[in-house]
């Protein structure tokens, strides 16, 4: 019983990874916007990097989800 409770708590704690992902995604889009408003001419050339940065940031948060799933279902 205690093990089951500890699993639940651990899976919940793994979701703290979302803090970092949130900061990261906000940073990516915030930096892009501030750069794009200063130099709108160069904005269109950087959408690839924008999407790449967004996806990489989002993925780090999802690694937390994988850890949560591992705790809940694999052990």
């Amino acid at each position, binding site marked *: 019983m205690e093990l089951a409770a500890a699993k639940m708590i651990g899976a919940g704690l793994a979701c703290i990874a979302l803090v970092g992902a949130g900061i990261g995604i906000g940073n990516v889009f915030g930096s892009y916007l501030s750069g794009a408003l200063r130099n709108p001419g160069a904005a269109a050339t950087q959408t690839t990097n924008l*999407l790449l940065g*967004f996806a990489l940031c989002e*993925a780090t948060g*999802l*690694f937390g989800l*994988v850890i949560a*799933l591992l705790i809940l279902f694999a052990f």
Partner: protein
Amino acid sequence: MNLNPMEQFAVKPIFGLDKPLLHIGSHPIFFTNQALLMVIVAVASALFLSLAVKPGALVPSRSQSMAELSYEFVANMIHSATGEDGLKFFPFVFTLFIFVLCSNFFGMVPGSFTVTSQIAVTLALACLVIGLVIVTGFMKHGFGFLKLFVPHAPWYLLILLIPIEVISFLTRPISLSVRLFANMLAGHTMLAVFGGFVVALGSAGGALSILSVAPMLLIVAIMLLELLVAFLQAYVFAILTCIYLNEALHLHDHH
């Protein structure tokens, strides 16, 4: 009613084929719902692309311009990420991109199965990419490919940097596969959880039943977001493949 949001990811034999098709060693091989979806994705995308460009009209029809657009999109992506000599990998990257894209989009159809939400599939794709990168690197540079792990730095930093470079290279298949798998898994789980809200509120009766419209509308919005993610993850998978290939082709110097 089963409201388990993880149930949609279950891999099971279909068409009543409970008996294995064949044995490899002592390991039974089944024809599962995942295998069926992969066959559908491969056949549908190959049929569409080959039939769409068949007319070869000067003024393309809608389907022909869709096929040409995807071709140009991937060709531009490879050209900008790896330069001129990366274009010989176009068939590989294009196939990979179309397969992942179609798998993601077929998975968005309610009631179907998302092939890319299985770590086995994405890890196989990622290992294919890293295997190609390693083979390409050794074929182009011979043992000079190992210079990839030696950045320009003083020797006392290299003691620290070389293991880091090796580890970061070796974790690439893991991060590449987990990124795609986790995105698909998280998106579809979220949709199923909100679907559970609709069912729970709708069956509560009275004023709560009317409230169930709210999560329903939210599902529509999340569905749109998931369509974006489905495209974005296929794009990221393809562009990271290009970036890794670029490193194998050009080592540290810029093209």
